[in-house]
Structures are given as C-alpha cells and as structure tokens.
C-alpha cells in the first residue's frame, strides 16, 4: 500500500484528523503533501502523527509518539526495519502499557521505511485485517475468535517456524560441508595437474635429448595415412631399434 493512501484512510471521513509529522519523518513530507511539522501548539484537535523509527529504536519512538498524542490521535509509526525484523516484544510492550492498540501493520515500499505500524487509543478506530482492510470489531464473538486463532494458529506458526529454522540450519550445514569438499577436490585436482605437467615436461625433454620427437611425428603421419599397413611398418621399426 502507498504511504499516502495508508495515512489518508485515517485523516478522512468523520474523524477529520490533521496530519502532522515529526522532525524524523520530515524526509517523507513530500509523500505526505498535507502534513505539517508537529509543534508545541498543536491544539486539542485529533491528529494523525507520522513518525520515523530507525532500526533498533522502534519501541522508543513509539513510546515518545504515544506520549505526545491525545486520546483520539492516530500514530503512524514508520519503521526502517523489514517486517520480519520488527522487535515484537518491546514494541507490543510499549503500546500495551500506553493503553493503546495496534490497528494495522503493513509492509511499505518507500525509500525511508519498510514497515508501517498504526497505533491508537481511540476505541472508535477499528483494527483491520491485513491488506483486505476489513474492520475487526471489539464484540464478544470477534474477541473469542481472535483468541482462538491466536492459540491454535499461533501454535501452528510456532511449530512451522521451528521446522523451517531446522531445515534452514540443515541446508546451511550441508552447503558448508559441500564447500569444504569442493575445496579439497580442487586442491587434489591442482596437485594432479602439476604432477601431470611435470611428467609431460620430463617426457618432452627425454624425447628431445634422444632426437625422438621428429621420429614420433613421422610415425604418427605414417599410421594416420595407412592405419593397418602403417602400424605394421612402425612396429617393425621400433623392434629393429630396440634390438640394436
């Protein structure tokens, strides 16, 4: 989802919230054309407060943003980190102790931030389902369903994560072992190539000393022109030479 669209879903409609951004989020001001810097004299009107959290400072930034925000404000926390690296523990802790709810989390494709976490104390702002955007109410049936999904699917995801981590560790170990084996094979091959080169050089020296190289080339020409007769001729010549 585009950042502007995400933010405008909280500024529009009956709420009519103003759009403010922190100093840290100033690089994104262009993408948030209607935003103005948050200041001391913001007044009591509800606002959407956009803040930018560097990696490792998500919880701290959320705490500060919630500290500055009123009961009807919505905080859009833009995190530099990737969604899979969100520090769930500290972030959830800060939001919960501040009496707020996370109503939406989505990936972003901006240059400055990759994850958006939307937080509010306003009970009229519903949580929405991921990407589909359907409101999730606070009624008994919804709470019961949410708790049941958290238990059952939460456990299934925990088990799946553990299985995938084991498979990944296994695959990495196998890849490491293959790299070691490859290096050993390359080393043996290199040694053999050197040995082979030595033997060839020695043979060539031997042939050159004995003046045999021209004779060998002549024999090869004779055999290639007449494989059967030529072979017999060359074999007889070799025998004659050996018997001298």
């Amino acid at each position, binding site marked *: *989802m585009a950042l502007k669209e995400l933010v405008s879903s909280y500024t529009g409609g009956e709420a009519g919230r103003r759009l403010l951004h922190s100093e840290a989020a100033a690089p994104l001001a262009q993408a948030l054309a209607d935003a103005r810097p948050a200041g001391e004299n913001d007044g009591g009107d509800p606002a959407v407060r956009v803040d930018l959290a560097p990696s490792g400072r998500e919880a701290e930034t959320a705490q500060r943003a919630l500290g500055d925000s009123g009961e009807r404000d919505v905080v859009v926390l833009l995190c530099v980190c990737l*969604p899979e690296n969100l520090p769930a523990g500290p972030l959830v802790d800060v939001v919960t102790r501040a009496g707020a709810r996370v109503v939406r989390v*989505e*990936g972003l494709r901006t240059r400055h931030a990759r994850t958006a976490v939307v937080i509010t104390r306003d009970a009229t702002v519903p*949580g*929405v*389902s*991921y*990407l*589909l*955007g*359907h*409101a*999730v*109410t606070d*009624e*008994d*049936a*919804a709470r*019961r*369903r*949410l708790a049941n*999904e958290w238990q059952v*699917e939460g456990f*299934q*995801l925990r088990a*799946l994560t553990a299985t995938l981590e084991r498979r990944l560790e296994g695959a990495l170990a196998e890849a490491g072992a293959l790299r070691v084996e490859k290096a050993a094979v390359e080393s043996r091959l290199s040694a053999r190539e050197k040995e082979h080169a030595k033997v060839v050089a020695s043979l060539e020296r031997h042939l050159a000393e004995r003046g045999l190289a021209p004779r060998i080339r002549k024999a090869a020409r004779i055999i290639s022109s007449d494989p059967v007769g030529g072979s017999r001729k060359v074999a007889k010549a070799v025998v004659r030479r050996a018997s001298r």
Partner: protein
Amino acid sequence: MTDVDAPVPGVRPLSPDESRTYWDERHRTRDELASGGNIAFDRGTNQMLYAVRTARLVEVLGAHSDAEYPLRVLDAGCGKGFFSRQLASFGHRVDGIDTSPHAIAQCRAQGGPSETYHLSALTEWAPPHLYDAVVCIDVLYHLMDDDEWAASVLHLASLVRLGGVLGLVDHDRDEDVVWHDYQKTRARSRYAELLSGAGFTVARFVTNDFMEDPSGMHVAVRVG
C-alpha cells in the same frame, strides 16, 4: 456459469459421484476455458467471460497485494487453475483444490511458484493454516445434494481467518432453482442463514454482469 437460460423441468439430479465423473470428463475433453466456463460460448466469448470475472475478483479481494508478504487465498474448485494463476499473478499465495485428477494435473503443469494444487473435495481440505480469502467459483451450484452443499459452505467458511473474506459464486435469487441435472442455484437467504451462523456477515453480491449471466459472488466477511 449457468449453461442454460431456463430451468429444465423434471430432471433427476446427478449424484455426487456422477457429478465428479461428469466434471472430470468435462475437464478431460474440453479446453481450459470451456471446461469451467460456458460450453455454449465459443472460445472468444469465454475468453471475455474470464476477463470480466477476473475483474470481479479484484473487486471482491481489493487491489492491495504484497508479493513479499502475500495474502493467502484458497481457490476451492479451481478447475484447470485459470483464476488461481490470475490471483497468484496479483501477488497472492494460492492453494487450488479440485476433485478432477485431469484438472489438477493440468494445474500442476501450468502452475508457478506461488501456487499449490491438490486433489480434494471442498469438505476435505484442511491445511494447518487459515486463509485470508476463500473463493469458490462456479462450484456450489453444481452440488446437487443440499447436505453436501451446506457442508461445503460451512467447511470453506471455517478456513477463513477473522477479517477475511469468503466469496461464493451462485445466483442472487429469492428461491432455489434446478436448472439441469448438474446445476441447482440456492436462494440468497440460504447463504445468509448459513454464513451468519458461522460468524460471517454477507456484505454484498457482486454480479458477473456479462451477457445477461445472472451469476455472481456472495461476498461475506468473518466478523466473529
């Protein structure tokens, strides 16, 4: 898609086994559009039909996707996988199920990395995860047995997470109608009753709006 324009009186409905045989044979003998589309249409018209219905799917599921952190979608009764592949091309992760071995074989041959295909009836598919969206396109009105129909709707509903969407293709009528020995449409009130008891609110009916085809999708959202 409804293949006939008016109900055929006095037909004996196909049994579940006969129905599976009929559809497996249809998938085996007809091209990928006619096997699931309208056998009365030529290929070009079916091509348009599928294009229009793909647009309706976007209307139902929304235009937001994220290929890195995708929505998980079930195409229940996927046939030869046309809509599964379309949904995957939008960035979603798709499971397709069907009872036709011919259809599933073709899906697997043509499928990409974001799809998986499985031989399964609607009531038998029970993966370890929940779906963000379950769509059942042109299948439920081919279940002639009411018990099988109800069980299928409820089972598919059970696979949807809170805030997720269930899209079920049928007609939007006041009463049930038997069109053919392999086609029976159910009243909207029957869908509403089943789904509200299962924790859904029926949000709307998205009509195909193609060449007077009365089919469309009952769109329901899980609220509890």
